[in-house]
């Protein structure tokens, strides 16, 4: 127990110190973890830690990562990007693999080793590139989008690679292969070939069907308990269960969870699952990168400095050139083409995963894998430099491309609607009708069931939870509409979002006058009293029913609204949160005074009124009009 705690402490403190420093230096979190791993490696040796088995444990983070990648992949989104995804992404992987394979053959590797090397090095670092593009706000430009499609294709290509690599096993290495946790397990080995096929297909079918039909009732059952940790437990149970099932039939656990992710991408529990799994994935991947860092063989690097650096530079040149040339074919021009090619020139974290996988499957000999590991790590270390080249050299020379006139009305960003009840439902329908894309969150599973029957798309989740807001995409959202039915939670949510994401426009439902003041202080942009407008309409209908001319009734209503707004503003400074309203005499007196003025005005006893009902055309007389000049 003591040594376990010590180990956990060592890893956590290394990560907690190194990652923020690396982020601050613009190196990104992946490099931070790698460096942390390098730093603690002597300590791990002293503590006699089995880094390799720790790394196998941490690889489960990759399984979770693919689950999350799957969750992000809505089939519709994939379809929209198909040309670039398949064309740009597919060609990048194919051509880079072929070129790297050629290079590997040239330095005397066997063809199967060369091919595996090509596959491993064709991938770029999703973690570094997406993070950096996001930080620099370049994800939406053409080059960023191109890079994103290539990365997405690579992420998906990992799945068939995981299936392909064991087929490349070298017979002379098989005997010494260790830790093969992807191969068949006892029971399935005893079955005939057709039985095995049936069982495999059945397992995949179970994931797809279970994902489509079982999640909903299960989560509804869990929701009854209203316990946060139960959701987390269920989400973990699902991922681990699928991974187990896949290992049992001899398939890659990553493939299984990826599939489950895609199946659940359209589910209303998507954001809930995402926010539950995300921290585990983050921690395990961090651990994984640290073990990679700890495993870097410095003796090897210093013995072969020229060779390793040469390989790294060669690799980055190949990767850069491939994307640069492809960019031309796919009409990515100017600075965008540079951005795309420069950003994808490194090998990535999947390279680490595939490398340890190839070693475990006896595809690449350990010694060569160690060298490749250095190449991957070095190329990642050099990536921030390439972004600096882009910022300093490319951008200043192509400023013209960037500044196209801000003419067309851009599609506004996504709006997050919190709460889809009587209030939020109407807002959502109006926004959707105007072509705005919304992400709707509601925490009542009964409401969710009802909406599903009407084909309304709503995600399950408590919008007042920061992690769920994060999963719903609050960072990149343009607006948050709060329509939840709880006064304190509404105020709290406004405070949280305004404080953490000041750029987000907040439209919120208020319960009454005093709530308006609270929300204003909390930083809301638009505050709508929930019953005010409908009550004014009811009052106007009453006037019409009493025989008022409809236009006079409308003008009275307008005048009332105008004065009420004025009153709200005027007494706002007198409101005090710590004094009950009925005891705040200053406030009460002012409201009474203004109310009296309003009644008098509306009855027309005072000369000047601020609305159309009393101001308008007075025909001029002859003496009013100037003579001809």
């Amino acid at each position, binding site marked *: 127990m003591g040594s376990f705690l010590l180990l956990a402490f060592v890893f956590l403190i290394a990560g907690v110190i190194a990652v923020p420093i690396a982020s601050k230096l613009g190196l990104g979190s992946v490099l931070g973890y790698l460096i942390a791993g390098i730093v603690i490696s002597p300590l791990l040796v002293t503590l006699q830690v089995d880094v390799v088995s720790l790394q196998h444990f941490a690889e489960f983070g990759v399984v979770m990562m693919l689950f999350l990648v799957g969750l992000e992949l809505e089939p519709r989104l994939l379809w929209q990007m198909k040309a670039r995804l398949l064309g740009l992404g597919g060609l990048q992987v194919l051509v880079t693999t072929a070129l790297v394979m050629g290079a590997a053959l040239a330095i005397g590797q066997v063809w199967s080793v060369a091919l595996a090397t090509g596959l491993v090095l064709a991938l770029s670092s999703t973690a570094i590139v997406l993070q950096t593009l996001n930080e620099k706000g370049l994800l939406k430009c053409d080059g960023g989008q191109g890079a994103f499609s290539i990365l997405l294709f690579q992420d998906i290509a990992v799945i068939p690679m995981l299936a392909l690599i064991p087929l490349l096993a070298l017979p002379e290495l098989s005997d010494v292969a260790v830790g093969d946790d992807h191969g068949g397990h006892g029971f399935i080995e005893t079955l005939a070939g057709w039985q095995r096929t049936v069982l495999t297909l059945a397992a995949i079918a179970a994931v797809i069907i279970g994902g489509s039909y079982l999640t909903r009732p299960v989560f509804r059952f869990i929701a009854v308990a209203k316990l946060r940790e139960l959701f987390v437990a269920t989400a973990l149970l699902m991922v681990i269960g699928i991974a187990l099932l896949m290992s049992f039939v001899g398939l890659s656990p990553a493939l299984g969870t990826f599939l489950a992710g895609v199946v659940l991408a359209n589910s209303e529990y998507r954001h809930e699952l995402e926010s539950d799994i995300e921290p585990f994935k983050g921690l395990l991947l961090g651990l994984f990168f640290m073990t990679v860092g700890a495993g870097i063989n410095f003796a090897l690097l210093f013995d072969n400095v020229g060779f390793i650096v040469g390989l790294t530079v060669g690799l980055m040149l190949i990767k850069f050139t491939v994307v640069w040339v492809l960019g031309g074919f796919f009409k990515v021009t100017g600075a965008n083409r540079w951005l795309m090619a420069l950003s994808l020139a490194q090998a990535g974290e999947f390279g680490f995963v595939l490398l340890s996988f190839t070693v475990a499957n006896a595809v690449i000999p350990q010694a060569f894998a160690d060298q490749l590991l250095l190449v991957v790590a070095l190329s990642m270390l050099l990536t921030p430099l390439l972004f600096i080249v882009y910022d300093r050299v490319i951008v200043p020379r192509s400023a013209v491309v960037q500044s196209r006139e801000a*003419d067309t*009305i851009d599609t506004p960003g996504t709006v997050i609607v919190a709460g889809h009840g009587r209030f939020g439902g109407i807002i959502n329908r109006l926004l959707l009708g105007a072509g705005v894309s919304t992400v709707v969150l509601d925490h009542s599973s009964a409401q969710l069931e009802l909406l599903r029957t009407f084909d309304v798309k709503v995600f399950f989740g408590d919008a007042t939870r920061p992690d769920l807001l994060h999963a719903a995409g609050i960072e990149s959202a343009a607006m948050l509409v709060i329509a939840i039915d709880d006064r304190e939670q509404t105020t709290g949510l406004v405070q949280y979002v305004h404080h953490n994401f000041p750029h987000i426009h907040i439209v919120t439902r208020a319960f009454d006058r005093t709530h308006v003041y609270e929300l204003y202080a909390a930083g809301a942009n638009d505050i709508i009293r929930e019953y005010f407008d409908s009550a004014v309409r009811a009052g106007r209908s009453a006037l019409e029913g009493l025989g008022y001319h409809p236009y006079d009734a409308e003008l009275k209503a*307008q005048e009332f609204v*105008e004065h009420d707004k004025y009153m709200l503003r005027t007494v706002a400074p007198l409101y005090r949160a710590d004094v009950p309203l009925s005891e705040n005499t200053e406030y009460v007196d002012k409201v009474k005074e203004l109310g009296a003025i309003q009644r008098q005005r509306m009855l027309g006893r005072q000369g000047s009124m*601020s609305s*159309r009902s009393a*101001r*308008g*055309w*007075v025909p*001029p007389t002859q003496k*009013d*009009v*100037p003579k001809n*000049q």
Partner: protein
Amino acid sequence: MASVILYYAHPGQRYSRVNRHMFQAASALTDITVVDLYAEYPRFDINIDREQERLRNHDVIVLQFPLFWYSTPSLVKEWIDLVFEHGFAYGAGGTALSGKVLQLAITAAGPEDAYTDIGYQRHGLLTFLTPLQQTARLCHMRFAPPYVLYGALHTEQHDAANEQAEPTSTSANHIAGFTGLLAALRDDQYSVDKDASHIVQAQHLRSVAAANKGDQTHG
């Protein structure tokens, strides 16, 4: 220096590139107040006191709008109905607008030859604008020659068909002429001595724009 306020009124501003670009270009000028009337009063709830205050504070009032039914869009009419009050703009004590300039900037869908005695609109454009001219007179204002783009619909369709291309020279000239005119009004380089008896188009402003912009060219 004269203080200039530009009121832009277009209920379908999304569909009018020329008017939108005119307003955007004008907004980039310094020392000119610009108001998008439909954005400020989307529910026609005009704040009379505030508008009167605005008018008091400016010497030149520019109204930019498309010609609808031979007149202004309805919000401009409502705005005049409410803001140009008896006792403020005309009548006993109504001298707040006295001596100020009223400059119209109008886009008309029909071509220039439609607005003649023998054209399909049967009258010159100035005839359709007589209510506004008389409004100015009643308020003791000077009615400047209206600045007009004829055939705006044709220009619009041409521009829309070439979405990526530069705006046509017609609309580009009109926009450049508009900003030149506004700048000239602001800098007291454009005199309005008496009431207008003619229409002004971009090509007439060559000298004005050139004087203001220096190197500005017009094709």
